[in-house]
């Protein structure tokens, strides 16, 4: 491996590593129950719950590790953790 001067690397380059494969439980979004509070996207450690312009969120299953914080903290139970099916 060639090492750059100062060990410099490209910003945001961890995106090549799709951590979605770690997941055991998958968040399932019940959009009809969502009140657009945004807590899920604020808390997600993997920046995988993305708020849209209309306030609803989408999940990025390429990177979501299935930690379940979004579902646990959702004040309206609009996110449910279900067993991942390969």
């Amino acid at each position: 491996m060639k090492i750059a001067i100062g060990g410099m690397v490209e910003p945001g380059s961890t995106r090549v590593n799709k951590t979605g494969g770690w997941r055991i439980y998958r968040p399932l979004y019940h959009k009809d129950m969502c009140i657009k509070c945004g807590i899920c996207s604020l808390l997600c450690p993997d920046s995988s719950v993305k708020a849209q312009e209309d306030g609803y969120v989408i999940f990025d299953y390429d990177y979501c590790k299935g930690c379940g914080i979004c579902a646990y903290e959702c004040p309206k139970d609009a996110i449910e953790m279900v067993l991942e099916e390969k």
Partner: protein
Amino acid sequence: MSRLAPGHRGCPGCCDAMAANFVLEAAGDDVIVVSPTGCLEVMTTPYPESAWEVPWIHSLFENTASVAAGIESALKALGRKGNTKIIGLAGDGATMDIGTLGLSGAFERGHDITYVCIDNEAYMNTGVQRSGGTPYGASTTTSPTGKKSFGNRTQKKNMPAIMAAHGAPYVTTTSISYPKDMMRKVKKAVDIEGPCYIHAHAPCSTGWRFESARTVEIGKLAVETALWPLYEMEYSEITGVKKIKNKKPVEEYLKAQGRFKHLFTREGGEKEIAKIQEIADWNVKHYGLE
């Protein structure tokens, strides 16, 4: 608004990633971040990748604050400081044990930096060894519980008090379980000229042994039991305290975590729990939490 890029190697429910995101969201894009060795460094920058999208540098374990101070001084000398915020983002081991000397020096000299300690109360990166941040009674691999041991024998070092003793313009505690509180304090700290210290409590599901989904809940329990008081200090004086409305007994916090399990299953555990309750009671009295 910056956040860590996904694809980093933090455990599911990682407290470090949450803390870094809150700091980045509050501090804005014009920042230079310095991180020492630790979970945050290892998981965000497995060479040749980086999860950072702002300028970021890996210092040594012991010199986060020194490197941050050097960057600040260099920018000033070059006339390029402008509004750029220099932020040290380090774990409890790097802050409370290994990097204290450099941190003290930087605060003594009064550099315009903000230093955030992400305190998950042990060396998680290398496999949960105790640090100066490990609380009384916690089982770690170097303070194990056993026939004659109830885990860690020392109390958590009062690092914010040490930093406040430097006469810093702003020293505060916060918790990743209160993101709005944390982001407000980070914003305040980066806008103050001079050295500011933020001590953020960060529950680690791997090291503390609880389900990853409960990270935020556990952090809230630490605050609600008065084991982690939230307060602000300006020039060594307490200027703000988050009051606790319905204080809970420490058992509620302890029983939720595997690292304290022995306190409930071994004979004599109740005496240890009483000692931990005394620590919480001291916090209530000392910081005026009720």
